[in-house]
């Protein structure tokens, strides 16, 4: 079990090599397969998460949630997506047609690209990049542009307000998000995700960086546009924000991308703070990738729990909280971490 996917990859590699393909071609095909597998994982995961969200929200609200389509309602999302695909794509008359259609196509790109560096288990990383964290931060923030673009292209005032909010919110919360990660980077001295996980063999960084984790959590919720920071969609205020004018599959793409982003932020939290694939309490008989996914879904449950408990903050409060509370706190965290590390090193050596 432990090396299921690793063995599959190496088996595939030897199969291709024995077929007499050159090494570059083998690498290419293998990379393609790995990314394909990640793509499939994300799509299934997004489908599952929509279902999970509905079930979690229902259970918290004394309801049962979807239970009609398929066993326990498991096929509900599939049916919904099927319905959305079959619906007409309506383009508003005054919309910027090209940008309007480009939005839902591009929205899935940033999360997909980032997943390439996500370590799903021991030796299970598609591309082991030495600047993985940096890459994650850089690419993940790209989705801001795409959402803003769709909001602009819709030529709807609600969409425009939503699009503007995306930019303001993302810029404000990218700061504490990055700064909260700096603490981890100071501790490990590397930007490579696998290295960071390896450094957490003995103690998870959530215990060394509790404040950093908290800031990451809050900023992460804001990054994924979920309650209490779901101002971008802000259903009761601006209807659906940038996605107001989208129908059918266009809407479904944004919908699924939101969940892909949730998985992404959870994957990062797991990698940076929750010890990645490391098993707690020495329970190593459970494969590392199962541990990793378990932690990811615990994080996702946390996000859902927040969403179905908290109301939404206001736009100026959001900005104030980001710049006046989170940024100073995260900078303080960096200072404390730096001093702590310096003291630790001087005492040790």
């Amino acid at each position: 079990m432990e090396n299921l996917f690793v063995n599959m990859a190496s088996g595939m590699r030897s199969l291709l090599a024995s077929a007499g393909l050159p090494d570059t071609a083998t690498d290419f095909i293998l990379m393609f397969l790995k990314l394909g597998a990640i793509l499939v994982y994300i799509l299934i995961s997004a489908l599952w998460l929509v279902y999970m969200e509905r079930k979690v929200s229902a259970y918290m609200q004394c309801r049962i949630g979807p239970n009609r389509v398929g066993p326990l309602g498991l096929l509900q999302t599939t049916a919904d997506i099927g319905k959305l695909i079959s619906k007409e794509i309506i383009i508003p008359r005054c919309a910027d047609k090209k940008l309007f259609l480009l939005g839902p196509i591009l929205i899935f790109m940033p999360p997909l690209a980032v997943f390439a560096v996500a370590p799903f288990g021991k030796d299970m990383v598609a591309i082991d990049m030495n600047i993985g964290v940096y890459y994650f931060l850089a690419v993940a923030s790209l989705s801001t542009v795409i959402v803003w673009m769709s909001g602009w292209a819709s030529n709807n005032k609600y969409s425009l307000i939503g699009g503007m909010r995306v930019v303001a919110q993302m810029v404000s919360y990218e700061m504490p998000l990055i700064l909260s990660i700096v603490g981890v980077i100071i501790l490990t001295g590397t930007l490579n995700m696998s290295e960071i996980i390896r450094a957490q063999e003995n103690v998870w960084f959530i215990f060394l960086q509790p404040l950093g984790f908290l800031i990451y959590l809050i900023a992460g919720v804001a990054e994924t546009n979920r309650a209490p920071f779901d101002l971008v969609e802000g259903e009761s205020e601006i209807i659906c924000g940038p996605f107001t004018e989208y129908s059918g599959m266009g809407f479904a793409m944004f919908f699924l991308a939101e969940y892909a982003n949730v998985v992404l932020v959870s994957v990062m939290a797991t990698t940076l703070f929750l010890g990645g694939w490391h098993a707690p309490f020495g329970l190593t008989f459970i494969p590392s990738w199962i541990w990793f996914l378990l932690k990811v879904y615990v994080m996702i449950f946390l996000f859902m729990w927040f969403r179905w408990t908290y109301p939404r903050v206001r736009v100026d409060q959001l900005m104030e909280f980001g710049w006046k509370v989170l940024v100073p706190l995260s900078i303080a965290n960096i200072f404390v971490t730096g001093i702590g590390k310096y003291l630790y090193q001087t005492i040790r050596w």
Partner: protein
Amino acid sequence: MAKGLIKGLGITLNRFFKPKVTVQYPEERLPLPDRFYGRPEFYYDKCIACNMCVNACPNRVIKLETETVDKKKVVTKYDFDQQYCLFCGLCQEACPKDAIKFSKDFELTRYHRPDIKIEFVKPEMVERKKAEIKKAAAEKAAAEAAKAREQEEQNPAAGKEGS
């Protein structure tokens, strides 16, 4: 500082594990009270065509037509146009004979608009009623005739005796 936030999380998590309150509708149903206003029911034989329900209805939902057969009113039409019904129960309250009543059937959706209107009185019912009245009248007439004949039969004798 964040006491309220944590308390809120506690409440939702607590509810997460508690039993649910929803009823799985088509399979499970809640019991309906006796006073429930569902689909109306009309008892043709009870109706005396007094027009009370027609006059009581705020939205003029009920159409009632009668025909007089042998000096007796026969209801030939009792249409209940449900789409305009407010389900206020004033007709039921007005009826002196309990001829219109609301049942507990609340699944009133129909695929076609003409199906919404309930035409309670069927032609055969009218025919039956008419026949009944005629029969009753005929019987009554026959009985009267028989009685008269009987009297006639008895009377001459009595007359004879008396004279």
